[in-house]
């Protein structure tokens, strides 16, 4: 089976000073798999995503989306085959929910009735009642609803690959957990390859079928969540200890007592 995305020896250096942001990153994500790219801010996760959909041009290495080398495709054509979800959502404020979701099909000149049917289907998929939401504008939605629309929009043209850049990062904790749970359900049903960027290790462990740990532009670790929990890689240990600080010993206020 062709991988949704195949990344080989990817590197990116800034055009100006030649500072390297991504170095020798390789991974493969198959259909139905979610690779979580985990790392601190500035570790190169987002840059890696943008190298896949060519918002940035790799300085070295190769990317194949559904078996096709991205370098051979027109960037706009490539991007229409890749769903892209960002933290700020970036819904078009002057478009209704229906127009937002139907954008890529419209650019691809689908017939209007097919777009309308697809939009309804997607709204239902992300848990929004089509009748109530079709003609709303983004400013009439809550943060969680906006990101649901963002996910629906990314799925519109049924791309084999989805890139998600901290999609739930700006949501309040309760909405975030709600969306994470639903997203987990979606992953299995959709059967798409996903690359999910986050710095939240809990989120990564919940949603990833594999975890890729990035640090200073390199992929330090690549493995299942189970392997990640047991890893002795210092950066992985640092992330795991952020989830579970373990028994507090000498804190700033001395030993703690439990109530």
């Amino acid at each position: 089976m062709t991988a949704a995305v195949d990344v080989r020896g990817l590197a990116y250096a800034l055009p100006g000073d030649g500072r390297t942001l991504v170095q020798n990153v390789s991974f493969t994500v198959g259909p139905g798999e979610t690779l979580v790219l985990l790392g601190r801010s500035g570790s190169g996760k987002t840059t890696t995503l943008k190298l896949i959909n060519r918002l940035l041009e790799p300085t070295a290495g190769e990317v194949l989306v559904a078996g096709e080398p991205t370098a051979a495709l027109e960037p706009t054509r490539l991007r229409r085959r890749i769903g892209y979800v960002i933290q700020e959502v970036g819904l078009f404020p002057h478009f209704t929910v229906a127009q937002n979701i139907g954008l890529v099909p419209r650019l691809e000149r689908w017939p209007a009735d097919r777009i309308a049917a697809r939009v309804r289907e997607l709204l239902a998929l992300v848990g929004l009642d089509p009748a109530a939401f079709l003609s709303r504008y983004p400013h009439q939605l809550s943060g969680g609803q906006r990101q649901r629309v963002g996910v629906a929009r990314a799925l519109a043209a049924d791309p084999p690959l989805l890139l998600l850049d901290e999609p739930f990062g700006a949501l309040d904790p309760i909405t975030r957990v709600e969306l994470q749970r639903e997203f987990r359900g979606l992953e299995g049903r959709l059967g798409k390859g996903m690359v999910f960027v986050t710095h939240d290790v809990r989120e990564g462990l919940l949603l990833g079928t594999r975890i890729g740990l990035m640090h200073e532009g390199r992929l330090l670790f690549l493995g299942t969540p189970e392997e990640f929990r047991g890893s002795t890689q210092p950066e992985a240990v640092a992330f795991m200890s952020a989830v579970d600080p373990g028994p507090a010993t000498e804190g700033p206020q001395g030993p703690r007592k439990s109530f």
Partner: protein
Amino acid sequence: MSLLSFYSRNSVELLALTWQHVYLVVVSTGAAIVVGVPLGIALTRRPAWRAPVLGLANVFQTIPSLALLGFLIPFFGIGAWTAITALILYALLPIIRNTYTGIAGVDPAVREAGRGMGMTDGELLRLVELPLAAGVILAGIRVATVVSVGVATIGAAIGAGGLGVYIFRGVATVDDTLIMAGALPAALLALAADAVLGIAQRRLAWQR
């Protein structure tokens, strides 16, 4: 002689001068839109052009209108075209600047989402940036138009016609009624242009 009896005796001339005035403003503002909006868009794509282009447009604004007309006479002679050229130069700055500001003010996340979804530069401009910037661009056109109505009165000094003809004639003969005969309709034109474009701005501008 009262203003009303002046108008009743010279109604044909009044209409002709008003028409000339509107013509000067519409042609010059139209040309400034045709030049200014694409130039403003170009500035958002070529940041290096921004300072020189806006700087130059700014320089035109600082030249007193009578002097600018004088400078242009050697190139375009006397008459309407010289006045129109001057009016275009005046109208460029608000139109270029507002087009640039309006597009540059589009939420970067919206632009990134559009690019990331595979919109071409043209699609992004046509479907997203221009509609979102429309209100700001129209505000610039509105300012340019209202200023043009005023500046066009000076066109009469170089034979361009328009309502300034009455004003200059009135100044020369120290006749307040005659000055008023030109100034009043010019002011009304400016107010009307402002109102109409204000409505268009509210209609066309996307609002939350």
